[in-house]
């Protein structure tokens, strides 16, 4: 099964990368951009056919390693 884990800076946590990207987009003429937050996506292949189990597994992966929950939030989506 394919699972996606998105990891991103928590609301309220300073995101210097997102700020720099927002400024660059503004300079390129994308004047409607008000804010950008930059995160990561992990595309994970897991064995088995149980979507619920895969999702629970991916959540544990996020908690244990993929996200630093002091500063990052995450969400998990079973894709197929």
């Amino acid at each position, binding site marked *: 099964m394919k699972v996606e884990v998105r990891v991103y800076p928590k609301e309220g*946590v*300073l995101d*210097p990368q997102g700020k720099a990207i927002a400024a660059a987009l503004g300079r390129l003429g994308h004047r409607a951009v008000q804010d950008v937050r930059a995160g990561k996506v992990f595309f994970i292949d897991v064995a088995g056919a149980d979507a619920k189990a895969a999702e629970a597994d991916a959540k544990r992966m996020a908690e244990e390693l993929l996200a*630093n929950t*002091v*500063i990052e939030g995450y969400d998990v989506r079973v894709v197929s």
Partner: protein
Amino acid sequence: MKFGIVVFPGSNCDEDCHHVATDLLGCEADYIWHHERDLKGADAVILPGGFAYGDYLRAGALARFSPVMETVAAFAKEGGPVLGICNGFQVLLEAGLLPGAMQINRGLRYVCRDVWMRAENTDTPFTSLYERGEIVKMPVGHMEGNYTASPETLAELERGNRVVFRYCDPQGRVTDEANPNGAVANIAGIRNAEGNVVGLMPHPDRCAEKLLGNDMGLRMFQSVVSALAAK
């Protein structure tokens, strides 16, 4: 007195620390490869600077799963002195041996220069030979030194006087201009509640002898030697 210096793939200040411990202080020191679980009788452990595991995912994130880190955590729990320098500090944060997390520097660039810090807590095995309020100069070299923590953790650190060093100007004023990376409350280094685990971003190992133009870092190593001798 024996230092144990942990070596991860990508550590690059391990030899600097070894040099300080042996050539400058006349102590014993052993390298401890990240796959080992035995601290080889070390009385104090140093996690040196560098780029453990290439800083993949997040600085320090993968190093924390090294077999050696279980042993280091057990050693710290029993009160053994542990010092994390730069990348070593990042590893201690990811391993949960110190609270908080590192973000990319607010300037989005690698910062490599001397900084000034005020010694805020001299009640640790690594800072006992500094005067409280003393202003010390040390070099930094990092991309992720922008320390942050939840408001509760910060309050706890301040309440417990657990900020060890704070970035300041040469006169000792804690200002935003003197902050090289945007770290909250100008925090350069912290300790755990017990005081035996200390982490800091600046490099005492790179300023431990006059030959390098600055020996203000040497006392961090001397501190732990005298702390252990007093036991």
